[in-house]
């Protein structure tokens, strides 16, 4: 067992501190210590994107970041997408477009799509597919997911005007 280190982070806007063994990945810290189980473990080796979160605004796989590396950083997980209990437009559009079946990949897709729309509010289909290339879905395929992201972009842009 590795030694534990105190890690101070901001998770979805809240200051969170936890004692983290040095050999623990951030995915496990978030699930087991912070209690945020929206983040999922798929492959555990950075291929599937189910564990996607943002770290200082950058989309990363939390299975390939050590918990100790998150010290002093700002984290957003899928739980941070809702506001006052209201689903984020991306979440609503995923439901409306049936862009999920089993749901394991969905939190990662939502976080990745949000990272894209924060940076590029009007992505083309090619840009959406490029941005979501690190997220794998083994149920629906990708078409409904792309449509849901396009619909969310439209709605978010309407709200901005």
């Amino acid at each position, binding site marked *: *067992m*590795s*030694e534990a*280190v105190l890690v101070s982070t901001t998770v979805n806007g809240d200051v969170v501190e936890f004692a983290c*063994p*040095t*050999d623990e*990945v951030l995915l496990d810290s978030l699930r087991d210590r912070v209690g945020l189980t929206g983040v999922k473990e798929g492959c*555990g*080796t*950075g*291929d599937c*994107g189910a564990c*996607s979160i943002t770290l200082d605004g*950058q*989309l*990363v*796989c939390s*299975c*390939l*970041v*050590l918990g*100790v*590396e998150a010290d002093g950083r700002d984290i957003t997980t899928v739980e941070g997408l809702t506001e006052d209990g209201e689903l984020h437009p991306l979440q609503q559009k995923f439901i409306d477009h049936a862009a999920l079946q089993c749901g394991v990949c969905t939190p990662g897709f939502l976080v*990745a799509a949000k*990272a894209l729309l924060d940076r590029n509010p009007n992505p083309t289909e090619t840009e959406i597919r490029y*941005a*979501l*290339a*690190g*997220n794998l879905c083994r149920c629906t395929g990708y078409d409904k997911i792309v449509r849901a992201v396009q619909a969310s972009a439209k709605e978010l842009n309407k709200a901005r005007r």
Partner: protein
Amino acid sequence: MYPFNYHRPQSADDALALFKAAEDGIYLAGGQTLLPTMKQRLAAPTDLIDLCNVPDLRGIELETQAVSVGALTLHSEVAGHEGIRSALPVLSSLAGEIGDSQVRNRGTLGGSVANSDPAADYPAAIVGLGATIHTMDRSIEGDDFFKDLFETALNPGELITRICFPVPERAAYQKFPNPASRYAIVGVLVADFSGEIRVGVTGAGPCAFRASGIEQVLNADLSPESIDAVEVPESGFNNDLHASAIYRAHLVKVMAKRAVADLLN
């Protein structure tokens, strides 16, 4: 993962001292290869030395006829940097094709190059552009850097600080990606330095190399068709579940032709 000691040094000297004191130390420079390797128990270092707080390893500098990139610069930073996109577009487009968004937001230039994965993209640019790898104590020419499968000219504990890429008149990179990982099955970078052609190949052999046979015909006639006359022997090429050595040898020519066509466009 097997347990290890974690260090976060504040200077390159401290990082080196920690490396020397460790039984089996390794630098963490993004971890997109190292961490999965450790999770699969293919690596079991006693000490992980995280370079994230070491100063002077970041930043992009545009020099006359060269682009200098700090070792800890992310792939996404290289891909998105306006200065590189205009001065050396082949490097930004190559970086933008590495893995996926999540990998590009975490993986670093120095980490990729020091690892010398046979299928990594950056090594094609190191040899194809004739880059210089600067470490704490010396400079290594790109031609002399990659030695073998996961082996480089770096000494144990030697830390890459920056990599300097000369700017050619024009250049192009074409790769045949593994559809799942987007690692290069074969990737070829062709660069034209005022009539002197350099060709860097990754993915085909145990490490990146210059394709001197292709360079020779392109120096005489810079056209995709001239590559038809070149024999690329498969001997020594990688032969694995992704592609046979013969197929890789074939792809070297195909990717080289596409890169030349792209470069002439």
